[in-house]
């Protein structure tokens, strides 16, 4: 249960950061937190108490004794994607800072209406 609570808390903290913090980098950190929370949640879903890794490490290991392997595989993918997004985001932030000399999201509002 703690996993769920933690992950959801992470997600909410991340969202808070995105919605409230004015600093672009902090917002991106928030996004990463959301991602992290999600990944944790995903893992937690596949987690089975007292089960082993989903590898046929010993003979006669039944599927029920292993944690669900699929979330783990998927989370791996998701982490990669999250990373890529973060990288792109940071690149864009650098570009933005070059032009605006600020990281305040409220001041970067040339495109509107």
């Amino acid at each position, binding site marked *: 249960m703690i996993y769920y609570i933690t992950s959801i808390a992470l997600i909410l903290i991340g969202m808070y950061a995105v919605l409230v913090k004015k600093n672009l980098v902090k917002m991106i950190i928030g996004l990463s937190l959301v991602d992290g929370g999600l990944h944790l*949640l995903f893992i937690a879903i596949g987690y089975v108490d007292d089960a082993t890794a989903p590898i046929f490490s010993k003979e006669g290991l039944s599927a029920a004794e292993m944690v669900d392997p699929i979330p783990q595989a998927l989370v791996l993918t998701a982490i990669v994607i999250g990373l890529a997004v973060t990288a792109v985001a940071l690149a864009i932030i650098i570009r933005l800072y070059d032009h605006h000399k600020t990281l305040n999201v409220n001041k970067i509002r040339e*495109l509107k209406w």
Partner: protein
Amino acid sequence: MNLNFSPVHFIAVPLFAAFLLPLLGRISQKLVTLVPGIVLLYLSAVALTLFPQAYNEPIVEIIAGWRPPFGITLVFGPLAAFLVTMITLIGFVVWIYSYRFIIRAPLEKYYMLFMLLIAGSTGIILTGDIFNLFVFLEITAIAAYSLTAFLRDHNGAEAAFKYLLIGSFASAFVLLAIIILYANVGTLNMADIAVRMGDVPAKIKLTIMILFIVGLGIEAELFPLNGWAPDAYSQAPSPIGAVFAGIVVKAAVYALMRVLFTLFDLPTSSHFLVVMGTITLLIAEMSAMRQQQIKRMLAFSSIGQMGLVLVAFGLGTREGIAAALFLMFSHAIIKTLLFFSAGYLVFFSGFKNISDLEGVGREKPWTGFFFSLGALAIIGLPPFSGFWGKFYLLISAANASHIFLIVLILFSAVIEAVYYLRVVGRLYFKKLHDIEIRRTPFTGLLAMGILAIVTITIGVYPDFIYELVLPAADELLDKAAYLQYAMMGQ
């Protein structure tokens, strides 16, 4: 000659090309510009070859040897065939346009991202696996973020940041939805999920659905989730604006509809999409009315058109979905045409504002002509394809007894007419500003010409497309059949 085409090529070939392009860039810039064309031509050929087959008997391709529900499948039914063909063809035309238009430095990056975009979009449409869908969505999105910022100006970066922020939310919600879904049904194959959906508690089902609506709705430009769209459309290079309107959004709408129809049966039971689509339409058209920049106006218009598509889907009838698909097709063609010509106009004058385009139409008659033609077409005048899309939509709305809806749609069409004609008027009526008119490559006109011919042809003889969209609509509606073949009979 049995080339043994397979739907996998739609994803694999562009993906491969995307990785190859930076390497090729070391060898020759010429090669970099040519290869995507060849790839897209090849994909178009594949699509056209597989087309009849898909309409006869949907092709289900298994990746990595696992049969569904465990393995990842590619489902190439009529709907997918229709959309993929559309995407590849539009992609090809975009390439023709880009061929001489995008000549700035990081060519290989541009084409790499473009290829990724194609791969992601076709992937979204083809995949039968929900997590795969998420992955392709992300591929598309990342490519799109980067392309938005492709022009090295600060506005591009700003738009890209907005897109990225909202897009990340989208992916987070989609991922969350997938997580909850997986926790409840324990499978990722969409057909399998659909089968097992009955066991899931209603509350959870609803939550999942809402998460999907929000997540995919962001990409599908549903109001109020579409704040990124006008910025991204207007700041990306013109061909990419066309790609967004013609390809990316279409794929996202497909994903939304696939989820909603196959997993949840929403549109047949609720007017949610109709209402949201109408709101999207109206707000977008009203905003477009007051825009100063031509591409931003086109972006809002595009949002409005997507609202129309959502309305049509939301009707949930066979005609409605057929109308939606027709609209998607015609919008893809026309909006691409408009973005192309607008891109040229902006390029000529060097300014994005409508007021700076005064008189350009007379200096550049062909581009002006194509823009005007596109404007007339998107307003929905016969004999252009836009008319038929709207007409089908209205007919199906009337059959569903949504008379008020018809009035709203037509009201928005009037607004559309006003702001498009304003631009057309400025193109021709005002005196040319004291600006230097640049020379432009011919290929762009070729691309526009192709699109113009297509829209007129379909406008005069809509049966071409209408006969194709009907089976596609059937596929989306006939869940049982989809489950049957997507599960390969299991």
